[in-house]
């Protein structure tokens, strides 16, 4: 009887073994013909996907007109809640200092007094408009050989975090009253370019127009720039082709970023000369140009400043506040 049972057990075990063997070998036999094709992803070709980085090398080398003074002073406006940090101006200050120039800040008081004896006046991103008295002082300064450099910005949205949460404020470059007296203006929209940019669309590449003194500059990178205009001015730098203005997503152009009109220079971006950006592309040469422009200024105090009503670099009499409104 035990023998019979043993035989049956052997049959059982053999059956299990055969079933398992079929289960193990079956799929391999069935799938033998099918070969998986590896997925091809030409869209992820690194050379196509990775943007080319603009080189960030170079040093600021100023080469001012030999006729310019070896020494002098540049006054930087701090009296109109100007938004800039030490890092924003350091490369420029460094270039001026190396040329033997000193830098002074104007914070309050009589602007005419502060500008006396200076060669250039630098106004960066003021948060409050210039009052008439200050504008007259600046115009008298430029009318007597002093040079004015205005640096504006598009409207910016600043996000600040505090204990009470995050707040968003809009910042405007309040250059309208000062710049408009020189027939210049700064746009409020930022420029962007998806094809010619330093990494991202807001970091626009700008190229010299061939006019003015930006010889040797191939391209510069401006980070959050505004278009600038000047009536009868010379455009020194324009944004690369296919640049848009924020909010006008369908209009492209090459917008002026740096313009010059007589002894006034207007730039639509303050970030190109920042400590960590001034080496990108040929930004260092643009910094050098701004420094040279200021150094070459030569303010000569008029014999009697009180009665001075000289025209100053442009043909508009200073007494005129605004042009008469056309009749409606």
């Amino acid at each position, binding site marked *: 009887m035990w023998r019979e049972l043993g035989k049956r057990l052997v049959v059982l075990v053999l059956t299990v073994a055969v079933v398992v063997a079929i289960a193990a070998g079956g799929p391999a036999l069935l799938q033998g013909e099918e070969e998986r094709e590896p*997925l091809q992803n030409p*869209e992820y070709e690194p050379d*196509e996907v990775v943007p080319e980085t603009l080189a960030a090398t170079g040093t600021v080398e100023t080469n001012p007109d030999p006729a310019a003074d070896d020494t002098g002073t540049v006054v930087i406006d701090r009296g109109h809640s100007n938004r800039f940090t030490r890092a924003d101006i350091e490369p420029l200050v460094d270039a001026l200092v190396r040329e033997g120039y000193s830098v002074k800040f104007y914070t309050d008081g009589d602007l005419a007094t502060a500008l006396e004896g200076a060669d250039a006046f630098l106004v960066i991103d003021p948060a409050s408009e210039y009052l008439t008295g200050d504008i007259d002082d600046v115009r008298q300064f430029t009318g007597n050989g002093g040079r004015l450099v205005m640096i504006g910005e598009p409207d910016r949205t600043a996000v600040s975090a505090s204990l009470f949460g995050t707040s968003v404020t809009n910042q405007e470059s309040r250059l309208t009253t000062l710049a408009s007296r020189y027939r210049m203006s700064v746009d409020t929209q930022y420029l962007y370019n*998806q094809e010619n940019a*330093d*990494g991202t669309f807001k*970091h626009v590449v700008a190229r010299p127009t061939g006019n003015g003194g930006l010889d040797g500059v191939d391209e510069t990178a401006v980070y959050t720039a505004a278009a600038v205009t000047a009536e009868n001015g010379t455009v020194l730098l324009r944004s690369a082709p296919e640049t848009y203005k924020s909010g006008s*997503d369908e209009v492209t152009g090459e917008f002026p970023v740096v313009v010059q009109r007589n002894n006034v220079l207007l730039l639509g971006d303050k970030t190109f000369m920042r400590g960590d950006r001034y080496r990108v592309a040929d930004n260092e040469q643009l910094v050098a140009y701004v420094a040279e422009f200021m150094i070459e200024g030569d303010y000569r105090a008029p014999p009697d400043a009180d009665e001075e009503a000289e025209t100053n670099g442009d043909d508009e009499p200073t007494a005129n506040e605004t042009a008469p409104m056309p009749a409606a």
Partner: protein
Amino acid sequence: MYWYTFTYAMASRIRALLTRIARSYVLFVVIGVVVGLALAPVAWNATSSEGTVAVVPVSGTIDGGTSAGVSSMLQQARSDSDVKAVVLLVNSGGGGAAASEELYLQTKRTSQEMPVITSVDASAASGAYYTIAPSDHIYAKPASTVGSVGVLATTPQALEPTTIISTTGPNKLTGGDEREFNYILESLGQAFIGAIFEQRGDRLELSRSELEQARIYSGTQAVQNGLVDSIGGRQAAVEHAADEAGLDSYNVRVMRPDGTVRFLSRSNYIASTAPEKTMVSADYLYGENPSGPVFLMVPAAYLESETNESAVAPPVAETGPTATVTAASGVSHVA
């Protein structure tokens, strides 16, 4: 006595009847019919259907979990020899960049093996659009939102290794400065746009830079600019899929992700037919204290207004895809 005789006669008659039934074929025919009817549906399906259209829902915020769930559903569809076509049923505003890329690759692989047709519910924005880009045909509804082709991330703050935190390299804390970070982000964006053009370049009416502006479009606008192929719902998508696969008669199998589906956007939440759904805050995507940059493929509108209110799920129970949106903000529509 009489009673006994009667009982005996009765019993012998029943026995005779049973014997006759047992010997005749009637019983076996009856049993055969019963068993046959029980098996009939299986046989009916086996012979009447030429194949199955698998419906794969892609709903909720695309994160690692969603990505794994959808990937596994697509893998099942590919390995099941009965599945001849896949319909992606999408209602998502996107999510993490890498998770969205994984889904893109999964859809692409599936569409190489069988027809993949997509039906867009409330939205297929950003990473969700990335997911469906390799589809053979995309249906959307007039109120669907598609597009937002781009990547967003919080720029790392400039930090300096100090005496408190020491590092072996200057970029160990932040990964790189803002300028370098933008180059990283740009390379992610270029891969995204390159993939969309690879898949739909022949149908897109938008230029590369127009697509890169990362706008959102309605379903009808998307048909015009080629981001979507036609207006239609899920039924249209299923029929189209069966047609593409050459199936005259077919089964539809809706695959379900396991677990809870989480939504960052209220409009997606309401439009979803997922069995278990919850809303999440934007923090959910960023993590509580993210140590590195988080690359997101979602429209920025999803991250702003709904951060606080989304912590509590709205009191809208199971609703169909045509639910009325009342307190929605951002990119939602009142239908």
